[in-house]
């Protein structure tokens, strides 16, 4: 599935809810299906800076695509990273670099986009794009 298609799918899923509480509950649910990072990789290197809660993010290259795994000690944050992993994992580096993130507004999580938000949604996206850029550079070399 393309990034755009997954984003469309998420927008549709979130549109079923009337209020923020249901949306948050759904996001928390999504957090439970997050492909978890290997416990042994939960170290300083994999921590995303700029989050009030801890977020570990790992990436691997498999058949030309990046596979993300992650975890967080806060469950709302875990839900947010799960949404991002669903969108960006199993995608080619270039596709990740090209993707826009307007869907976050549309699924009602716009408030998390503010750079002052301590959950670091912005940092998470940045980190995922950094990984993509690193792999992209490797591929070119």
């Amino acid at each position, binding site marked *: 599935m393309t990034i755009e298609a997954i984003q469309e799918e998420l927008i549709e899923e979130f549109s079923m809810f009337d209020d923020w*509480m249901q949306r948050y509950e759904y996001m*928390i649910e999504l957090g439970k299906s997050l492909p978890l990072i290997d416990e042994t990789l939960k170290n300083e290197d994999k921590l995303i800076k700029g989050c*009030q*809660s*801890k977020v570990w993010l790992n990436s691997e290259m498999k058949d030309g695509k990046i596979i993300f795994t992650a975890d967080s*000690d806060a469950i*709302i*944050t875990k839900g947010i990273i799960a949404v991002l992993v669903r969108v960006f994992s199993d995608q080619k580096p270039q596709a990740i670099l090209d993707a826009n993130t307007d869907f976050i507004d549309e699924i009602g999580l716009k408030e998390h986009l503010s750079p002052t938000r301590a959950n670091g949604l912005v940092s998470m996206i940045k980190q995922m794009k950094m990984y993509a850029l690193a792999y992209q550079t490797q591929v070119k070399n």
Partner: protein
Amino acid sequence: MSFDVQKIRNDFPILSREVNGYPLVYLDNAATSQKPKQVIDCIVDYYSNYNANIHRGVHTLSQEATDAYEASRKKIQTHFNAKEAYEMIFTAGTTHGINLVANGFSEILKKDDEIIVSAMEHHSNIVPWQMLCEKTGAILRVIPMNEEGVLIMEEYEKLLSKKTKLVFVNHISNALGTINPIDEIIAKAHEVGAAVLVDGAQSCSHIKPDLQKLDVDFFVTSAHKMCGPTGVGILYMKEEWGNKLPPYQGGGEMIAEVTFEKTTYAGLPHKFEAGTPNICGGIAFGAAIDYLNDIGFEAIEKHENELLKYATEKLLEIEGMKIYGTGPDKTSVVSFNIEGIHPYDIGTIVDKLGIAVRTGHHCAQPIMDFYKIPGTVRASFAFYNTLEEVDALVNAVKKAKMMLS
């Protein structure tokens, strides 16, 4: 004057706004207080009617602004019962005041001298002293605290010696709400000839310190925690220290005479007030102090204690609730966690319900390390908060718990 919380709330325009579709419940007063219209009007009045640079011009506006600024200094002196108005130095806030003193001590401290701080300090109270120790070779000692979040005074006494040059402690812990026994801390430090700097950032909105009675050497606080504007505060220093410490920054205002060969510095307080100050802020700080005194600190303390007692009781009814900072002397701050739930998650949900609390380590990581937690949720109450708002908080926390567990 009788205490009428509804009438007081009418003074604060921001308290009538909504957040996320709910009436705002502002419980982040330890971070900054809201501003009454008396203070806002004072700011508008300054810029509308007599904005001018001070201490220089002979023109009428400059005179008016200077008079108002100095009248405010006098007001602040009276409020804190300092001996002289010139002992009250206007700063950009508490952190600025601390750095000013730390800078001064870099000329005084020698290798192996000792500085004592408490285990419950804000980062702004740790970092300047670490920097100072690196620079001078002095050693930093820490007064430990117990599980209740209370300083262990026996340990403090053991730390004191002839080597102790400076003791630095906050009056009230921002993360726990503990009121420290500063009178005892000051008296003991003086017995060994050490100076004491008290950080009153958290205390001055709740209690009215008497600086002469405390006999403290340095005292710092910020206007914005006391219903005043941000970017202005006060550093009190005893006159003898004011004469002893070197200036912090060079510039206009702080000089007596300048030639290329030599500059002589101005006396107190101007020696430490280089450049154009936050004139409006200084004046509005005075208005804030007037406002608080009109309500009266006894009434403020009584109401806030009621809020603290009620909030503590109600929150403890929630299963898994753990409150940090349970000493007998406490101000209206409740720092808590619910077992198995990250404080950040609770903060996010209660914010969606219109309630402003703080989550995280509150710039006091050593305290979080002590309790081995990533942070807490902190509700901090002011005199304009109500028992109904405590109920709103408790209900929101219950709702968050339901969603998150």
